[in-house]
């Protein structure tokens, strides 16, 4: 393991990180700029944040986004979990390969196509587009991600635990609720978080499926940027980055702590 910090390694690390984070750093920095111009630094100020919170259009968009994300993540997680259970547990049935293939397909489908096809569907059905159509669309694609996350945990799940539960008097459904679900909880929570973030930052599909009165934050940002970048957008983006960062940190802290605790427990058990 010698030479971990050779000249070459250090340089590539630095270049990589600068490449990744310089744009974000600039964005955060300029959100505190006094000047209206995004390229000239004129001193520190938080006035753009104040303005952001006075802007009703932005607040509305934020509300829509979070409501869509909460609802679609929840429904997608439930449906995704059910799909995962069928894929992993049902054994061989006719059309199983087709079924699991169809679950995974939307992961690699270009978003434009997913969005367009959903738009065509909604138009054909004569549904008026808005909050509900965005939510439905988000459920459709994040369900696949949820199914993948949950099924990857489910394949390693020891089915004798469920058998033990039925042996002790649970019906198969009770066994699922009392044993499988609690043990699967971390995977289900991460499926939910993934669906939530996917919904939060989706622009393409939301643009196709939204209607008047239902604008999500990414859509709002995109349309504003076309009129020119304002520090207000920077402020909004900084807040979003903050939320995501906190989420990631909390999640990794939780997993690391439970991991560490388990190690300690196992050491205790050996002694």
């Amino acid at each position, binding site marked *: 393991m010698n030479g971990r910090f050779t000249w070459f390694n250090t340089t590539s690390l630095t270049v990589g990180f600068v490449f990744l984070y310089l744009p974000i750093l600039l964005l955060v920095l300029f959100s505190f700029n006094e000047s209206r111009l995004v390229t000239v630094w004129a001193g520190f100020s938080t006035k753009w944040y104040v303005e952001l919170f006075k802007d009703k259009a932005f607040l509305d968009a934020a509300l829509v986004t979070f409501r869509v994300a909460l609802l679609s993540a929840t429904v997608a997680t439930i449906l995704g979990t059910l799909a995962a259970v069928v894929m992993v547990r049902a054994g061989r049935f006719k059309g199983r390969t087709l079924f699991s293939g169809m679950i995974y397909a939307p992961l690699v489908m270009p978003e434009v196509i997913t969005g367009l096809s959903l738009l065509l569907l909604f138009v054909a059905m004569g549904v008026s587009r808005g909050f509900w159509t965005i939510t439905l669309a988000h459920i459709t694609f994040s369900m696949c991600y949820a199914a993948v996350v949950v099924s990857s945990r489910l394949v390693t799940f020891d089915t004798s635990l469920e*058998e033990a539960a039925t042996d002790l008097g649970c019906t198969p459904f009770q066994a699922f609720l009392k044993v499988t679900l609690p043990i699967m909880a971390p995977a289900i929570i991460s499926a939910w978080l993934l669906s939530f973030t996917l919904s939060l930052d989706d622009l393409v599909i939301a643009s196709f499926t939204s209607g008047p009165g239902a604008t999500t934050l990414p859509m709002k940002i995109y349309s504003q940027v076309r009129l020119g970048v304002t520090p207000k957008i920077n402020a909004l983006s900084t807040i979003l980055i903050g939320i995501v960062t906190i989420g990631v940190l909390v999640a990794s802290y939780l997993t690391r702590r439970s991991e560490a605790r388990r190690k300690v427990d*196992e050491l205790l*058990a050996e002694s």
Partner: protein
Amino acid sequence: MNISPAKKPSTKFLPWEDPKQEPLVRFGNVTKRFGSFTAIDNVSLDIYEKEFFALLGPSGCGKTTMMRMLAGFETPSEGTISLGDDDIGSVPPYKRPVNMMFQSYALFPHMSVEANVAFGLKQDKWPKNLIKERVEEMLSLVQLEQFAKRKPHQLSGGQRQRVALARSLAKKPKLLLLDEPLGALDKKLREQTQFELMDIQEKLGMTFVIVTHDQEEAMTVASRIAVMDHGKIIQVATPEVIYEYPNCRYVADFIGDVNVIEGRLNSRTDSGIKLSWAEGQNDISISNNTERSADENACFAIRPEKVHVTHEEPLDADNRIQGEIHDIAYTGNLSTYYVKLSNGIIFKAQESNRRRLANREFTWEDKVWLSWRNTAGILLD
């Protein structure tokens, strides 16, 4: 931990010999197929109340499948399984008064030891105070009182195994199934746990069915053993009978070590029958199996520990053969001598090492005599 080996009851426990006894479990011509593969092939078997019944056999012979049919995880393709007076063939597992201790223990990782043991009782809606009492009773039975609040991953392998046992005993099942319960334990702990299991079975007066790979384990704990092969039951008998009177070569070979000599029965005497087996060698005389008639082919089987090794010809022995020591396997307490007979057959003889290694009497290429009493071996087909 104190071990008190289960005392054998003073009056003999032999319900299978009593025609008035009704069996607790009855397999009636049970066949189980997985697709086109027959895992259990037309098995009929009775298990009696308070028995400690062992299923023994090589990997893949269908032991687990038998257990899973008793627990209700598999339904027989043909035939009936009854428990007491009820046909349980198609009763789901959660409605059977049968509990299983899983090979992997299958402890619920998100619950404490206490909650694991209480799980089945809560499911049956026992009153709270009774659950508490029962859990305490079970934990003290397996000596885990001080671990009640721990989670399964905070326990050692042996402790987990005892939690699994306590959990499967808690509901007082009519029948407890143990699928290789001691597989994951080391030899010392395993032997100790075997005695604990026998003790618990005796104390609670329950019926246990155990699956094991380990013939010594089966011999130690079981009241009767069923030896299985390829989905069939080959012999069901007490450990003593299985060992001393196996009904075929397969069973003799599977349980313990055995020497087999093929030959032809040639003459009957008052004291038994004689087997001629090689040119220029004395016939082997056998005093049991007297129902066999002369003039047919047969196998003579004898356990290595019943064969003596001596330098001088033992003139008073019923049977004696000369040979040369080909190999010696030293296992500490015992030495097994592989003796080559004049016709090339290797014959195993076992002596316990009462002396130290340095004083050993025999060494490689010694000419020795093998001898045994005419009651020591048996005839097989």
